[in-house]
């Protein structure tokens, strides 16, 4: 087996219910106490095509998807044809008895007998899977009851019957598939994907306003805030375009509300003028940039890490920013929370740079301990300060570069936020000296940001021969690839950056220099982070290992190329 745990893949056309089956099974596994890494591979269409929903499941922590399939649920013939060559040793295909297994090891299910109507096939598949994998049956039953509860007892009863039939049918076929080992994880964990975690992190930080224009894979951040955050007092506005979304957010933070803007590359490109406005206006704003492959429309539903340069340099003129790049679902939560603090403390845009893979990847995550979170900076809501009915020094020249940020309406003094070069009060100036002073002031905030920057996570061997450098969502696959290489006797370490800007070379340069070989692993074609490292430190990595076909890194794919 090329990976630990079990890789269960459900494949079929969009609209056939593969996500429903996948999500129900994922939830059942998490409730049972398993660890999972879900990866979703879908096309830019609503019906038809070929999509997969993959659950790698294990009884111990895992951090990446796998390639070889242990169980493939094929909802159509195409799925069999496409993937029969990707089955792991001993893997089985579960498929309708009417389909042709094309010579692969298979468990043909008489779905027509088990499910009285096509609508029940999802539950039937769940029953077969649950039974074959040896998932705790009461857990699955509870889930089915819960799922259909709203539709009344009759529907629940019908589904329970299907589940029972399927489960029993499969029991007779247990031999074809080893049951999962007993779960070891705690109960009570959430089934959470990256974008949900970002939304929760924003809520925990006190987000009050979200303006967005729909764009895959960022939409679900806004969607979570709509479906769930609404009750917690968040105003979510679907804007006419991304330009409006960004400029609205700046209006919101001006008015004292913490604001979030989720988008993807093309939408973000339209926001870049607004990012520059935030820079000079010193407006806090958290931008979630969920990457997908470009240029332009590219591969709209796939994953990539090619918008690092865009995030680094978006906006004309020069101003500081911070870019956080979550590697895990927990990071999505905590870094988003931290982003709100940073953006308010330094009054400059802060990015959460994620990607489609992480956005859509469900994991088992313990509920976050809200009481353990650090406080989030607030603007100055106090009524005093500044002259009454006259402008206070919104852009007061300070040593840190940060000026007290008062909120209009909460005070008798006036707040003037401005887009030109300006005086301390925010009035237009063309004075060369003031320009220098203000530009320096703004850039000084970058130094403050640098002092607080999060050091890279170091995983594996402390003084390795081979040091793998990565950032954002690649950490999991890279860390597991390192394990695979170590298992072959190599000395391998991982340096994973969850903050990619600003960088503090003191935190990592010695380790880079100490390693015999440094390979930078990135989901793009030009090695953007490796170039950034060189720009900031002069250090040139030994080589880059790049993937840019829209598909995610897997430990196997990486180990093969590093082996």
């Amino acid at each position, binding site marked *: 087996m090329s990976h630990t745990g079990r890789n269960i893949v459900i494949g079929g056309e969009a609209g056939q219910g593969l996500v429903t089956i996948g999500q129900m099974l994922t939830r059942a596994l998490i409730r049972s106490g398993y660890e999972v890494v879900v990866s979703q591979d879908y096309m830019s269409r609503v019906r038809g095509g070929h999509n997969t929903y993959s659950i790698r499941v294990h009884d111990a922590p895992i951090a990446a998807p796998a390639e070889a399939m242990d169980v493939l649920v094929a909802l159509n013939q195409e799925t069999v044809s496409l993937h029969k060559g990707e089955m792991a040793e001993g893997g089985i295909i579960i498929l309708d008895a009417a389909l042709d297994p094309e010579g692969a090891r298979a468990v043909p299910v008489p779905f027509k007998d088990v499910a009285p109507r096509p609508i029940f096939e999802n539950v039937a598949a769940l029953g077969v899977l649950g039974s074959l994998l040896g998932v705790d049956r009461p857990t699955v039953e509870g889930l089915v009851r819960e799922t259909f509860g709203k539709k009344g007892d009759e529907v629940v009863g019908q589904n329970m019957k299907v589940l029972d039939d399927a489960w029993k049918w499969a029991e007779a076929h247990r031999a074809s598939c080893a049951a999962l080992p007993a779960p070891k994880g705690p109960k009570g964990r959430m089934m959470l994907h990256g974008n949900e975690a970002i939304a929760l992190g924003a809520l925990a930080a006190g987000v009050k306003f979200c303006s967005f224009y729909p764009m895959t894979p960022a939409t679900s951040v806004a969607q979570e805030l709509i479906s769930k955050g609404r009750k917690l007092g968040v105003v979510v506005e679907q804007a*006419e375009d991304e330009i409006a979304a960004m*400029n609205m957010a*700046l209006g919101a933070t*001006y008015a004292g509300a913490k604001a979030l803007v989720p988008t993807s590359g093309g939408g973000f490109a339209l926001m870049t003028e607004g990012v520059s406005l935030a820079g000079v206006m010193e407006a806090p704003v958290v931008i979630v940039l969920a990457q997908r492959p470009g240029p332009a429309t590219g591969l709209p539903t796939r994953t990539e890490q090619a918008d690092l340069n865009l995030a680094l340099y978006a906006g004309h003129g020069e101003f500081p920013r911070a870019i956080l790049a979550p590697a895990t679902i927990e990071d999505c939560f905590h870094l988003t929370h931290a982003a709100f603090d940073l953006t308010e403390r330094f009054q400059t845009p802060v990015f959460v740079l994620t990607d489609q893979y992480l956005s859509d990847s469900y994991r088992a995550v313990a509920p976050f301990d809200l009481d353990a979170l650090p406080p989030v900076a607030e603007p100055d*809501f106090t009524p005093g300060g500044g002259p009454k009915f006259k402008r206070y020094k919104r852009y007061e020249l300070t040593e840190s570069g940060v000026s007290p940020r008062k909120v209009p309406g909460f005070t008798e003094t006036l707040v003037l936020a401005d887009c030109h070069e300006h005086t301390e009060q925010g009035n237009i100036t063309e004075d060369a000296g003031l320009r220098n002073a203000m530009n320096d002031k703004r850039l000084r905030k970058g130094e403050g940001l640098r002092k607080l920057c999060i050091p890279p996570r170091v995983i594996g061997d402390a003084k390795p021969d081979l040091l793998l450098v990565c950032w954002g969502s690649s950490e999991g696959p890279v860390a597991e690839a390192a394990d695979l290489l170590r298992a072959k006797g190599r000395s391998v370490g991982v340096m994973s950056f969850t903050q990619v800007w600003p960088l503090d070379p003191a935190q990592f340069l010695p380790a880079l220099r100490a390693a015999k070989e440094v390979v930078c692993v990135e989901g793009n074609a030009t090695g953007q982070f490796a170039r950034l490292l060189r720009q900031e430190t002069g250090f040139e990595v030994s080589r880059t290992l790049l993937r840019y076909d829209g598909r995610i890194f897997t430990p196997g794919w990486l180990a093969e190329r590093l082996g």
Partner: protein
Amino acid sequence: MDIEVYGEYKKTAWCPGCGNHDVMKAVRQALAGLDLAPNKVAHVSGIGQAAKAPHYIDLNGFNGLHGRGLPPAQAIKLCNPELTVIAQSGDGCNYGEGGNHFLAAIRRNVDMTLLVHDNQIYGLTKGQASPTTPEGQITKSQPDGVRNAPFNPIAVAVAMKCSFVARSFSGNTAHLVKMIQLAIQHKGFALVDLFSPCVSFNKVNTYGWYKQRCQELPEDYDPTDWAAAMQVAQEFGERIPIGVIYRNDRPSLDASLPVLQKGPLGRQPVDRDGLRALMQSYT
């Protein structure tokens, strides 16, 4: 309020004789008449000559990007409904670069006032045609005459049933003050397209040109009659009607969002219990 409270800025970057000076006078009078404290007003603009307004009056100000005054203005109201929100900017800013936000703002109907200093030209960039420059007019950048049909903001706003649509003229202070006050008092998105002549770059649509044409709508004109308004909106020739051309009672977005009834969003605390319950929903 004493009108002095809004400050009087003698040093502006505007040309002597520019209509914008008169508009600012009218804005101050209108605010004073409505007794609006400077700190309770958020005054938003884009970029252009008109858009420099926030620097010349003592109010809270947000001077944003060219064409992008409306999005922050609406968001400010949606985050703090206690503020009176007024946006000011030019015809290029609102109907050119910002055209999409203009359409969206009409549809969204947030309670705010938009004052468009319509000089039918790009003033700050020195005289290119704006969306409202008449067809055939010769400008520096349109030496053979403008070929686009002019944008008729009133017609579009009325066609879209914008909740308040008025037209006025910087040369008629009393009228302009009244229009601004009615717009501010109106609960919804209120457009005032106001002619404000550019003495430097528009030698056709001058003070005299407007003066001669602008005629107040008759006393008995009914701005709630949509079809009539649509006809009035088309008049732009020897006679140009000024006044409240159309209005309706559509509730404003801010008034219909339950969370805003609890006051400004900024100070509403994080609902930790709600969030804990929410996390449970993911288990």
